[in-house]
């Protein structure tokens, strides 16, 4: 049903952007021919990007409305490497153009196979991202955002164990929810200037280690009640209120914390800004 809604939204997109100079629709997909792994690299410089779980008989699908004056669609599959490169690449046409933001808003919807183990490498520029990875089989995730607002959701448990989820955010707002559902052993965030929210709710199946570095900005950690948590901090000029935690050496831990049991281990390195903790039932 989600695919139908998404297709409807994208079908209506050209109408919404009717005033645009030359937004072109582009679609690409590949049938699933028994591939068990896919390394997907996605570059999206500007606009709005959505990623969701796709059809079971397709390896991937991208539906795009792009600004033909400045960008060209990119869709290259390397069968030998089991890798696909999707997105838009910049072509000429630089310079100042005075139009409203809505007129030149590119829109991309990417659907990925729920049957294939995925290695995702996402690079977003000045883009708005809404990435739903719940129900997919993500074995590794790397997300690099520039001046963007990006939300990553693991609304359902990941289909496979994930080695790492690495997030890099420039001057951005980043929200990641359901990190426990990601089943990633390591979660890392390299934040520049901006705001980041990491939500560790979900179904924690193994000890998860989170390394978080924020230069300037706000960091909000949403932690599930009942899950043992240990937080180590290395702060310069940032505030941190360890509500609900107690001190143990150089770390803050939840009462009754046992390092041998499954737990969440967070290391925070922040320069300037504020860190807030929120406990989620």
């Amino acid at each position, binding site marked *: *049903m989600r695919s*139908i809604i998404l297709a409807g939204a994208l079908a209506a997109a050209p109408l919404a952007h009717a*005033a645009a100079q030359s937004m*072109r629709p582009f679609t690409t997909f590949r049938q699933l021919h028994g591939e068990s792994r896919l390394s997907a690299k996605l570059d999206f410089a500007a606009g709005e990007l959505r990623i969701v779980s796709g059809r079971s008989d397709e390896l991937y699908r991208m539906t795009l409305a792009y600004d033909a004056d400045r960008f060209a669609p990119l*869709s290259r599959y390397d069968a030998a490497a089991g890798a696909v490169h999707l997105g838009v690449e910049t072509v000429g046409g630089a310079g100042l153009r005075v139009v409203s933001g809505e007129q030149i808003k590119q829109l991309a919807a990417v659907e990925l196979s729920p049957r294939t183990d995925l290695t995702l490498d996402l690079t977003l520029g000045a883009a708005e991202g809404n990435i739903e990875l719940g129900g997919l089989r993500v074995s590794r995730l790397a997300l690099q955002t520039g001046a963007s607002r990006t939300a990553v959701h693991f609304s359902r448990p990941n289909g496979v164990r994930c080695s790492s989820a690495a997030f890099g955010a420039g001057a951005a707002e980043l929200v990641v929810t359901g990190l426990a559902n990601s089943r990633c052993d390591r979660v890392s965030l390299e934040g520049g200037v901006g705001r980041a929210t990491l939500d560790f709710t979900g179904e924690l199946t193994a000890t998860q280690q989170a390394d978080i570095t924020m230069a300037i900005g706000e960091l909000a950690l949403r932690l599930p009640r009942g899950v043992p948590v240990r937080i180590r901090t290395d702060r310069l000029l940032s505030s941190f209120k360890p509500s609900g935690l107690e001190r143990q050496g150089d770390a803050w831990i939840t009462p009754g914390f046992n390092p041998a049991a499954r737990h969440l281990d967070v290391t925070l390195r922040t320069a300037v800004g504020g860190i807030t903790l929120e406990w989620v039932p």
Partner: protein
Amino acid sequence: MRPHSLLLAAALLAGAPAAVRADLGRGPEERIGHVVEVVRDFVVQQLSPAQHPAPQAIPDAPGIGPSVDLSDLSRPAETERAIREAAPHPGPNLRLTVPNGHARLGDFTIGSAETVTGHLLVLEGNANVYGRLLGNLVSVDGNVVVHPGGVVSGDILALRGTVRDGGGEIGGEVRTLSAAAVPPAPAQAELSALARTGLNAAGIMGVFLTLLTLGAGLVLFARPNLEVVSDTVSHSFGRSFVTGLLGQILLLPTFGMLVVGLVLSVAGILLLPFAVVVYGLFVIVGVVGGYLAVAHAVGETFVRRRMARGVVVGSPNSYRYLLTGLLGLFALWAAWALFGWVPIAGDLVRGAAVLVTWLLATAGFGAALLSRAGVRASFAGRLVPPEALTDEYLWATPQFGVPAARRPDGHTPRGTRRDDASR
């Protein structure tokens, strides 16, 4: 009977292509989605049948004639450009080479018992694949349908068309690049010299009236400040220009320092949006206000010189100075509006107008900075004693000789007589 089954039955009864039957093995959601797609395509096809040329093969171009390589379709926009260049007007006389492949004009079908080896380009026609194509398939202004049992071993690219997977096997990627949602606006027609002159004049007049209105407001509400900035320009033009130039150079670094400083102060992050807006307003007010002060200074100088020559001036006040100065400053722009259509001279006049405007705006901005927006009169030549000012007036308004004799009696401007000045 469930809803998706009803839909499926309706589609079959309506005579939808047999491809629908291939959906029977899919999941309910996919089946519904695909049936809707098929029915839509069918209805569209029936309502607006495409007019395609008679099917025919396109012979290879002789020698180094037009050629299109279809081996890499990963950049569809480039492929489209290459095809457009090679076959700008597809027709029976077209000659086109497809390395390791074939080109066709009009509808083309690969029968279920056929195998076509090599890439296939179909121009202005639909491609129906029931058999096997061992290569890539590109269609231009037509649709591609891979029917049940049909095989395309490579990629498919439909330019300004659609691809429908009716249950066949596609080994590579499927891409569709549709026409732009809105075609690019046609090139603007060349305007006549008269129309260009009218447009330019209207633009100049609009800017002039806007500045005049702003200037009148400035005189009304901040006259002392305007006069101090204006006097600073008059008395310290070089210093004002250099200050303005430095100010322009330092605008961005200062802005950067402001932002970084506010961010580093943590609490200042909240003030950042306001600071950005205020900084922008400050710059605009500095530049526009400075420019108006320059206009005021020019007008004042001009009016006083006329008065010095004995010309009767109705009411020498700041409004008049501003109007006169703006008229003077816009003289070059008026010349451009009138003669901008002249090929080289027009550009030269515009260049001169831009240069002079920048020069004066820079000086005005510098004067605004030097005088702290008209608060500080250090460089405004106002530190001289009143007696000296009186002498200056006396110098500017000859009391003896021929100029004085020519001046009509009883019309000596106020404040220029010795007895006025000594009051």
